[in-house]
């Protein structure tokens, strides 16, 4: 048995031990997809740096010790949830502790007819039929062992389904709190978002840590947008230092569907994100954006893949990162234009601001074009603080530290300013600003 497989083995065993108790167990299609995923996990194991897609991200910090899958029944206090709320946000909310839906902490009253916002486990137990077919349909080919692990355990998470033509006037927040079970637990939330023809909604997926417990959050969100559906989606990652987060975002867009997905990583966690968007029919449009901070010894990896599978689709992608201390970030943006995807219009950029000599960015924009009538542009930049701008601010009396913070925030603002609702934008901006403020040295007077 190779080292790779041995890392996956405990998770394979854990799944086998609880397979029969997973929600919807016994539903043939579900049993089958779980065991297929399990097989992939067993065969491929967890990724290593020998895999091209994991070249710059070592999972050693994760495999150093074993994580046990969290079990349902875990809770998270009302006080904690209230204390970490987004100020002035008026939203429907589902709360999850280590991946398990907490109905008593969630707020879904007043949802319009035709809208389902529920725990996935509950839905799989109650009426698995309509869900099972679509689970996994946006993921397609399993990208790596973590996605396979999530799919093998698929159980709880969020189910959001909006009926054709329905427009939600308030956003839906999915709040994931990891580390609630204590030290060394694994959470495996699986979210399924289905928007019917012409429907519209905003979803916030927020990940935070309960405390300083070491935890692994392996989260996967599938988004399926029918014709003319519009989804405004933001994934806010604000976890603590000893949290490890592997996030998946897989979206399929039908004719003229529109997706704006922004992933903002402002915490101190080790983070790997995989985003894949399939533009499956004419007129589909995706805005795939991200902002990330990597300070201290943080590691943040964003792998994105936009596939133009049909003619006349457009995509815009912009990821911006600010790195300091010994922070390490990775960006790999792949745009694939399939042979029939004529009149594709695609732009991608990755910009990085390095605030220290020890910070490191590995960036790789990648275009693969198999059609001949397309408009595609991509580029990556890595730069330092603009000294001319810094002097300009300082010459107006602004102290150097504040000036640096203003410029750094301004750099990230290009992404943050596109985030709605405004309450979320303010929340993210203040968290970014908090991370950029110099830490008060130990023993300094308050």
């Amino acid at each position, binding site marked *: 048995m190779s080292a790779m497989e041995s890392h996956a083995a405990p998770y394979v065993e854990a799944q086998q031990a609880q397979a029969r108790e997973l929600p919807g167990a016994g539903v043939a299609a579900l049993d089958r997809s779980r065991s297929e995923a399990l097989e992939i996990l067993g065969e491929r194991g967890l990724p290593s740096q020998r895999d091209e897609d994991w070249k710059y991200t070592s999972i050693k910090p994760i495999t150093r010790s074993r994580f046990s899958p969290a079990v349902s029944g875990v809770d998270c206090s009302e006080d904690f949830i209230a204390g970490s709320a987004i100020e002035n946000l008026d939203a429907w909310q589902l709360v999850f502790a280590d991946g398990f839906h907490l109905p008593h902490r969630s707020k879904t009253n007043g949802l319009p007819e035709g809208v389902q916002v529920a725990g996935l486990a509950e839905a799989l137990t109650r009426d698995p039929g309509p869900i099972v077919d679509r689970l996994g349909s946006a993921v397609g080919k399993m990208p790596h062992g973590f996605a396979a692990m999530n799919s093998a355990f698929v159980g709880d998470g969020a189910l959001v389904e909006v009926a054709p033509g329905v427009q939600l006037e308030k956003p839906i927040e999915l709040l994931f709190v990891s580390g609630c079970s204590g030290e060394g637990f694994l959470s495996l939330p699986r979210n399924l978002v289905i928007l019917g023809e012409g429907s519209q909604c905003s979803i916030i997926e927020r990940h935070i840590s309960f405390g300083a417990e070491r935890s692994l959050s392996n989260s996967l969100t599938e988004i399926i947008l029918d014709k003319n559906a519009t989804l405004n989606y933001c994934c806010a990652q604000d976890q603590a230092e000893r949290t490890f987060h592997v996030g998946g975002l897989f979206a399929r867009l039908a004719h003229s569907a529109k997706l704006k997905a922004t992933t903002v990583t402002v915490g101190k966690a080790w983070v790997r994100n995989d985003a894949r968007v399939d533009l499956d029919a004419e007129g589909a449009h995706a805005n795939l954006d991200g902002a990330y901070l990597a300070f201290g010894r943080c590691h943040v990896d964003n792998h994105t893949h936009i596939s133009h599978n049909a003619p006349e689709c457009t995509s815009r992608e912009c990821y911006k990162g600010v790195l300091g201390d010994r922070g390490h970030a990775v960006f790999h943006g792949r745009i694939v234009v399939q042979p029939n995807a004529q009149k594709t219009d695609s732009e991608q950029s990755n910009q990085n601001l390095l605030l220290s000599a020890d910070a490191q960015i590995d960036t790789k924009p990648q275009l693969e074009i198999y059609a001949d009538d397309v408009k595609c542009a991509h580029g990556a930049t890595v730069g330092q603080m*603009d*000294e*001319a*701008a810094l*002097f*300009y*601010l*300082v*010459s*107006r*009396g*602004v*102290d*150097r530290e*504040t000036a640096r913070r*203003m*410029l750094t*925030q*301004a*750099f990230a*603002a*290009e992404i943050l300013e596109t985030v709605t609702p405004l309450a979320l934008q303010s929340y993210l901006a203040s968290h970014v600003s908090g991370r950029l403020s110099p830490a008060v040295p130990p023993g300094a007077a308050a």
Partner: protein
Amino acid sequence: MLKISDLKVTVDGKAILNGLSLDVGPGEVHAIMGPNGSGKSTLANVIAGRDGYEVTSGSVSFMGNDLLSMAPEDRAREGVFLAFQYPVEIPGVANIALLKEGLNAARRHRGEPELDALDFLKLVREKLKLVEMKEEFLSRSVNEGFSGGEKKRNEIFQMAVLEPSLAVLDETDSGLDIDALKTVAGGVNALRSEDRSIILVTHYQRLLDYIVPDKVHVLAQGKIVRSGDKRLALDLEERGYGWIDTAADAATA
């Protein structure tokens, strides 16, 4: 107000200022004129404290304090203001945010309470009128996408808000059409007062038709080779800068 004595400055080892002396009294407006490469902008930047200029000898005293030992932000808080020849575009930082931070930093420095949002807004609205700028300028990113004229007006607007004791205007007239020049000059004139000194660094005499200086100095090869009143500027306009270099050479010889 400002006393510069025998100032020598090098940039990348190259001598730019070669023993410049200048005395600017309170409320005075001095024009520094000179051909390209004479050291005008270097002088402006050394006063503001920009990096990359090495002072090899001489002194600069501002209101009795050693200006050269002060950090640029402290110079600003003490009342030194530089209107940039090329104002920097700073996407993502709103004009109003910069001014609020700068003004309140100066107020804290002086031991005064910070202005609250309302009083601050009242102040900047009033100052906007001086340079005929619309209120939307406040929320726009600093100089981003501004026309040449708007950038220069923005410099004067910032000066109006920060109310410096010494303002150095580095080629504020360059790139302005006649209407913009009049607006900018009008703003500067409105800011003239007996406790505010102004140094106009310019290549052309034209600006001095609108901002009439108390004294005119001609800078060549890094030192002041001629000083006089506003008539000196008219002389230069007629005769060009050619004769200055000869004069400078003679002075060095």
